[in-house]
């Protein structure tokens, strides 16, 4: 390297890392320059997190070297990496909710062993806020903050530790569009200050918006590093997946039929007795996908638990096909044809320690065709049915007798779809159905949901991915803090801005001209 060119801020060379035989990273090179936003793009399992965990000292590489400003460094613990100026903001920021912002920032500081110099910490926090345009009240308690604000605290925390190299792991997945915009402002400011930012994402529009250069990983290998000027959504996706990707899903117009699910003034409490769903009403019709948009954690899961009969409701009514079901056991909901694809596949939707047959049986074993002599499970019939379903939903599996934990994420989800959709349910409650899946599995899930709609089911699609909501839904409802913000009857007329504002708590009525009565009326696009 000639002396005239300054060494890049970070230079990773020939990074290798394997886990129990599987190569997570193989011969990966990565450069990060000062004043650059460098995106790592790749599907789940492409090796992004492994590579970043190596850079932040959580893993030690099997081979390869890391240079910080031209000097070779070996990180054996995260502390080594922090002292080299590397700061990582994880997807789940590790903050103490019962402490204030400044206390969280001070937590774990090395130079303040006994007493905290509160004033100087707060002064420094304010200085950082000024410089980077990140605004959070240092005296606020973390539990009072929104997810977006908590993320800002996590960023302040790393900047406070003089991070020169900032790693942001899928930071936008928890944000509303407006919050994303603010985050990007901050990132640009950090770039202005001549730090380096590594940005991890799989949302292509964002990547093109914020990056200077993009490195694409696939199956543990680097595909290419390209400047953003040479990148298009299509080319990035192709490099990421390894083949051409069609973004348009064929969605035909359908005539919705009669109402299959009606929720009226539902009040549901969450785990700690807090009201999570507050007087929520909606109607779901046959042959339609009703998208429920919202930042995750705003009561969507409690709502769906209640609609599936799993969670007790405090007040209100749930009507499936004209029959009131509130207060009934969830088995009654199943019998009326309510299918439920919960967000947490491994923790709730499947029993990963049980085999594939048993997972298909999980919500069907009580049915007549799967019962023998009243008390016995008809395992032969279940095995036969499982065989058909696995084929129909192309679940790649080592054998029906193997535990479900041996399936990949995409195949786990296909297994759940197979169980929940195969009998043409009246109502499908799908929560984050494509969360964490790779591009092809995501496509499969979305197409399957559309197909299910065309076969006559009413689908309630809960997602915090607006793109997913917009591309699949026939109508869009928005939830914020458990309240219905409004229902947009024509998704094509809705702008992301408007939905984003609704997700942040602006009710639909505020977008309407004064002379239109509030309610579920079509909305014109807001300029």
């Amino acid at each position, binding site marked *: 390297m000639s002396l005239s060119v300054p060494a890049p801020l970070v230079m990773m060379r020939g990074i290798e890392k394997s886990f129990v035989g599987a190569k997570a990273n193989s011969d990966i090179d990565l450069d990060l320059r000062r004043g650059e936003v460098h995106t790592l793009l790749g599907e789940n399992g492409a090796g992004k997190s492994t590579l970043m965990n190596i850079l932040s000292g959580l893993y030690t590489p099997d081979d390869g070297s890391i240079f910080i400003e031209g000097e070779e460094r070996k990180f054996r613990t995260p502390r080594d990496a922090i002292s080299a100026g590397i700061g990582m903001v994880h997807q789940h920021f590790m903050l103490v909710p019962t402490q204030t912002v400044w206390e969280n920032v001070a937590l774990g500081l090395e130079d303040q062993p006994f007493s905290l110099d509160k004033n100087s910490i707060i002064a420094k926090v304010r200085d950082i806020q000024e410089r980077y345009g990140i605004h959070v009240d240092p005296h606020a308690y973390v539990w009072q903050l929104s997810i977006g604000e908590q993320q800002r605290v996590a960023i302040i925390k790393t900047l406070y530790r003089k991070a020169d190299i900032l790693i942001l792991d899928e930071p936008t997945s928890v944000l509303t569009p407006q919050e994303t915009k603010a985050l990007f402002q901050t990132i640009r400011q950090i770039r202005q200050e001549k730090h380096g930012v590594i940005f991890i994402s799989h949302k292509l529009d964002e990547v093109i918006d914020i990056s200077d250069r993009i490195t694409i990983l696939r199956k543990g290998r680097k595909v290419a590093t390209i400047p953003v000027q040479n990148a298009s959504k299509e080319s990035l996706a192709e490099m990421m997946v390894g083949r051409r990707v069609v973004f348009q899903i064929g969605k035909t117009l359908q005539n919705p039929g009669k109402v299959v699910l009606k929720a009226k003034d539902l009040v549901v409490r969450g785990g700690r007795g807090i009201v999570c769903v507050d007087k929520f009403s909606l109607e779901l019709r046959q042959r339609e996908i009703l998208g429920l948009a919202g930042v995750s954690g705003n009561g969507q899961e409690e709502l769906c638990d209640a609609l599936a009969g799993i969670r007790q409701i405090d007040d209100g009514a749930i009507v499936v096909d004209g029959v009131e079901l509130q207060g009934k056991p969830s088995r009654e909901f199943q019998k009326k044809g309510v299918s439920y694809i919960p967000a947490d596949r491994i923790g709730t939707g499947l*029993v990963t320690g049980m085999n594939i047959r048993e997972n298909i049986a999980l919500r069907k074993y009580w049915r007549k065709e799967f019962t023998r002599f009243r008390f016995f499970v008809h*395992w032969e019939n279940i095995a036969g049915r499982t065989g058909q379903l696995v084929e129909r939903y192309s679940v790649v599996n080592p054998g029906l007798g193997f535990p479900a934990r041996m399936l990949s994420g995409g195949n786990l989800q296909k297994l759940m779809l197979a169980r929940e959709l195969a009998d043409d349910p009246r109502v499908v409650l799908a929560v984050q159905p494509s969360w964490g899946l790779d591009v092809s599995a995501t496509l499969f899930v979305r197409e399957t949901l559309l197909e299910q709609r065309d076969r006559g089911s009413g689908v309630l699609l809960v997602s915090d991915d607006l793109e997913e909501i917009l591309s699949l839904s026939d109508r869009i409802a928005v939830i914020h803090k458990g309240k219905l913000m409004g229902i947009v009857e024509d998704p094509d007329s809705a702008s992301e801005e408007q939905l984003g504002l609704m997700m942040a708590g602006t009710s639909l009525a505020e977008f309407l001209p004064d002379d239109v009565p509030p309610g579920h009326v079509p909305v014109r696009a807001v300029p």
Partner: protein
Amino acid sequence: MKYRIVFRKRFRTGMIFEGVLPVLSVLAALFLAGVALMFFGVSPLEAYRAMFRGALGSWYGFSEVLVKTIPLVISGVAVGFAFRMKIWNIGAEGQIYMGALATAAAVRFLQSSSQFSMLLAMAVAAVIAGGFWGCIAGVLKARWNVNEVITTLMLNYVAIHLAEYFIYGPWRDPSSLGFPMTPPFPPSARLPQFLDTRVHLGIVAAIVLVLIFRLVIRWTRWGFEIRAVGENPKAAEYAGIRYGRNVVMVMFVSGAIAGLAGMTEIAGLQGRLQPGMSPGYGYTAIIIAWLARLNPWGIIIVSFFMGVLLVGGETIQVIMRLPLASVQVIQGCILFSVLAFEFFRNYRVLLVRKERN
């Protein structure tokens, strides 16, 4: 060159490994216990040899092992059943005592000359009493989420003292010269014994219960529900399986089976109710169920092994003048090493060469 030890999570355990591990852990336990035996001042090898001879060296020893195996298998099935649902029934001991108490009550109040109807009445009484005792913890858990480990454990003391109250008090045999025991059961209230051994009909009950355990868990809807709750309670709730009802039912059945162990023990072997009728079978059953990984056949094998240990322990008590505690030390060592070896099921230990900085 320096090496360091690294633990890696296992994703799969091989079949052979699964089989070898319990054997290894027992060997490790025997080693540990051997160290303890050395502290008692005896040669461990000699002690083990004496144990083996005493337990398996003669037909009499073997039959005595079977006698001990019977209550262990039955109570092993009892706790194994609850453990399948991850309900930690630590109360088999108390349920055994309740079963025995009810058996004695049936003998006292329902005199009948027909052996069949007498035994049937005793068994029904034992099942109801043991089941009721288990049910208490089940209902508390289902209704108010009271930790069953604590309730079942505490109910043990209640049951044991309740039984002692009757033995020392109203039901004491007037002709027992002051010894605390009920009058001997009439012949119609005794389980038949085989040939001239002390092995009684309870052995059939034990085998049948193991078969039923397997049948229920493997083939019935209820067994599927129990397994689903045990594997993933959230998924079970999502599947529409009612947790509370199942907790109560499983605790009833678990307690009932343990109660039956109490009945076979006093009707088959002791012929009366006396204090200490179960020398901790209900607790040993926990070790058994754990060692057997809740597998029905495993429960038989491990119970037999424990039987060998108990009979062998009696032998070395006599021959080597060791305290009863020495056998319990060996048992404790086994449980510890099983728990320790559980770690190796989940992790691989690797020696990795240390890089120089």
